[in-house]
C-alpha cells in the first residue's frame, strides 16, 4: 500500500515533531516562556474538565446467550434494562439520541430491534431476511442500514423509519458484509473478494443500485487483504478501517480532503483493530496488542502519534466509543478483575467508577448530546 514519507519519518522519530514547541527556541527559553502558560492552561483545563456522560448504553449478562442492552444513568447511578436479553448485540444510538438500535434473536432469527433509552416503544423491525446484523444509523436518524444474510449472501438493507419499508442496496451485488453511511445517498461497505485460498475483502462505495470499488488506485495489490471494521470520517471526507496488509492487522486512514492517500496510522508489529473515529475527525481510538495485552489507544491522524488511553500489563481493555463532543471515551476494562464499562476523558484521565449489571459487560456507547457532532 502507499506510504506517506512524512508519516513514516514521524513514526520513526516521534520526538521530532512536538506541536507544543515552536522551532528555533533555545530549550531553557522555551520552558521559561511556556511554564506560566502551562499553568494557565492547566487551570483552564481543570475548570473545563469533561463531565461524565449523562447516559451510557452497554451490554450486560451472565453469559453470551443472555446479553441484554442496558442504559446507565450517571445522575442516579442506576442501570435500566432496555433490551431483550436474547444474545443482544452492541447498542447503537441514533444521532439525535432518541433511539437505540441493536441486533437480537427472535427464535432462530437474528433481527434488528429499536427501543427508547427509557425502555419504552420497543419494537422489532420487520426484516425479510432471517439473519440481520450490524445496524448503523443514517445521519438524519430517519433510516438504518444493516446487513441481511451472512458472508457470501450478505447485502446491505436500508430501513426507512418514516415509511417502515426495507430496501436492498447495492444492486445484485452480494458478499457485502459491513456497511456504514457515507452521506445521505451513499454507503461505504466491506465486501468479499474472490481470492485463491484465503479470505479477502475490499472497500466499496454503494448506492441503491450500484457498487464501486473505492481503493483500487490506492492499494498496490487488490483482493489480497482482509479489511474489516470500516468507519466513515466525521464530515464524510475520509474513512478508516483495519487491514492485514503488511502481515499483521493495522489501522488505515484515507484523508481525501488533504490528498494524503492511504496512511497506516497505527504501524506496529502487534495487531491493531476496531478503529473509532472521534467526532472532530482528528483522532482515532482503537484497540492494540502492542503492550502485550489488549488495550485502548488513540492516534492523532495528522501526526500519527499514538497515545495510550487504558492499558495495563495484566488486564485487557477494549470497545472504545466516543462521546458526541469528542471529550470522553467509554470502553471496557478488566482492571478490577471483571469486565466493567468505564468512561474517561480522551487521554484516559478522570476515569469513572466501573459500570456493570452482570458478570459480562461490553460494547458501551455514550448517548449523543445536544451540541455534539452527529
Amino acid at each position, binding site marked *: 500500500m502507499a506510504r506517506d514519507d512524512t508519516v513514516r519519518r514521524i513514526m520513526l522519530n516521534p520526538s521530532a515533531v512536538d506541536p507544543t514547541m515552536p522551532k528555533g527556541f533555545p530549550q531553557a527559553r522555551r520552558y521559561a516562556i511556556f511554564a506560566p502558560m502551562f499553568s494557565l492552561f492547566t487551570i483552564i483545563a481543570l475548570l473545563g474538565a469533561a463531565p461524565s456522560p449523562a447516559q451510557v448504553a452497554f451490554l450486560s449478562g451472565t*453469559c453470551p*446467550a443472555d446479553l441484554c442492552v442496558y442504559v446507565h444513568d450517571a445522575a442516579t447511578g442506576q442501570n435500566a434494562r432496555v433490551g431483550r436479553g436474547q444474545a443482544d448485540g452492541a447498542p447503537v444510538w441514533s444521532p439525535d439520541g432518541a433511539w437505540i438500535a441493536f441486533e437480537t434473536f427472535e427464535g432462530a432469527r437474528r433481527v434488528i430491534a429499536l427501543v427508547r433509552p427509557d425502555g419504552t416503544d420497543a419494537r422489532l423491525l420487520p426484516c425479510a431476511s432471517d439473519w440481520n446484523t450490524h445496524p448503523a444509523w443514517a445521519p438524519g436518524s430517519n433510516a438504518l442500514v444493516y446487513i441481511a444474510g451472512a458472508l457470501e449472501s450478505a447485502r446491505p438493507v436500508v430501513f426507512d423509519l418514516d415509511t417502515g419499508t426495507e430496501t436492498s442496496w447495492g444492486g445484485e451485488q452480494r458478499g457485502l458484509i459491513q456497511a456504514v453511511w457515507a452521506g445521505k445517498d451513499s454507503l461505504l461497505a466491506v465486501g468479499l473478494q474472490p481470492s485463491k485460498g484465503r479470505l479477502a475483502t475490499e472497500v466499496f462505495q454503494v448506492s441503491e443500485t450500484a457498487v464501486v470499488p473505492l481503493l483500487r488506485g490506492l492499494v498496490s495489490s487488490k483482493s489480497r487483504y482482509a479489511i474489516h471494521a470500516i468507519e466513515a470520517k466525521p464530515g464524510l471526507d475520509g474513512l478508516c478501517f483495519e487491514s492485514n496488509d503488511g502481515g499483521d492487522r493495522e489501522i488505515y486512514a484515507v484523508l481525501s480532503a488533504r490528498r494524503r492517500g492511504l496512511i497506516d496510522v497505527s504501524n506496529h508489529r502487534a495487531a491493531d483493530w476496531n478503529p473509532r473515529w472521534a467526532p472532530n475527525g482528528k483522532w482515532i481510538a482503537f484497540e492494540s*496488542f502492542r503492550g502485550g495485552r*489488549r488495550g485502548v489507544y488513540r492516534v492523532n491522524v495528522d501526526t500519527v502519534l499514538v497515545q495510550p488511553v487504558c492499558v495495563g500489563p495484566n488486564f485487557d481493555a477494549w470497545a472504545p466509543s466516543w462521546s458526541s463532543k469528542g471529550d470522553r471515551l467509554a470502553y471496557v476494562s478488566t482492571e478490577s478483575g471483571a469486565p466493567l464499562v468505564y468512561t474517561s476523558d480522551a487521554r484516559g484521565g478522570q476515569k469513572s467508577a466501573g459500570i456493570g449489571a452482570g458478570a459480562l459487560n461490553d460494547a458501551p456507547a455514550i448517548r449523543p448530546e445536544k451540541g455534539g457532532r452527529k
Partner: protein
Amino acid sequence: MMRRALAILLFSLAALPAWARNADGTLGVLLTPNNGRPVVVTAGGAFDAMLSEEAGLRLAAADAIYTLPAHMEALPGHGFIARCNVPPETPPGTYALEALSASGQPDRNAHAVTVIAAAPDAYAVAHIAGPAIRDDASAQQLATALAAAQQKATLALVTGPLTANGSPEELQRLIAVLDAAPLPVGISPGPPERSPVFERYFGPVVWSFRYGRDGYLLFNTSDPAPAPDLGQDWARYELQRRALKPCRWVLGATYRLDPRQGLRSIVTLFADDPLDLIFSGEGDAGSNTGALAGNRAVFTPAFSAAPEGFTLSLINPSAIATPRTPK
C-alpha cells in the same frame, strides 16, 4: 512471594491432605491445567498454572511426587498465575497437578500434565466429535474410543457436544472418563456445556497448548453467533495464536464452523493467521461452509456415527495427512 510459596509447598508435603476438585466436580483452587485443558511438556520445561488462591504445587503420579518450583503472580481482582518449572529428573508420564493453598485448601487436577521425553517428529492425533455423554453407557463408549485411539495416537481432541444436556451429572461422568484417559485430551465445548458452564468445570473456553513442536488452539463456537465477536475470546485467540507462531504446525479444534460466527472471529482465525488444520465436528447440517476461507479442515462425523469413534490424522515434519471426510 517465592518464600511464601516454598513454605506452602513444604507444608503440603508434610500434610498429605485429601485432594479433589470441588465435590460437584467444579474447579477449586486449581483452575488450569486440568484433564480437558492439558499441558504437555518436556522434563526441565515450564508451564503456567492458574489458581484461585496462592498455593504450593506439585506433580503426582501413582508412585512418585515431584515438587514444582513456581513463581506466582497475582491477577487483577482475583486469582494467581504460577510459572511452574518441571524438574529435569521427572520421568515421562501423565501426572496430576496438586495444590495446597495458603488457607490450607487442598486440590488436585488429575491427568492435567503430561511429561514427554522429547518432542516427537511425527505422531498421530485422534479427533472425537460430539460424544454427548448422557449416562454411564455413553461415558463408557467414550472411554473405549479413547483407549482405541491410544493404540494409534499419542494425543486426542474431543469436540462438543461433550454432554447431552450439560447437567452436573453428565459433566461429572465426562470428568471421570478424562481422569482415566490413557493419553492427553484437549476438549472444546458444544452448546450444552457452553460458557459459563464449561468455565466452572474446565476453565477458559479458549485454550492453547503445545505438543512437541506443534501448537493446538481449542476454540469456542458453541456460544450463539455472533455474540462471540464481543468480549474477550477473540483477544485471547489473537494472543494465543501469536504465542504459537513459532510452532511447526498450528492446529485448531472446535465444535463446528459457522459462517455466521462473526466477522472478528473469521478474520482472526482464518485470515490473519490461518491455522494449518482445523478439526471440526459436523455441527448443524449445512453450517460448515463459507467460514473456512481456504483453511483446511477435518470434519469428523458425530461420535455415534463414526465407525471407530474417531478420525486419525498423521502429523509429520513435511505434511499433515488427514482422513477422507464426508463432503
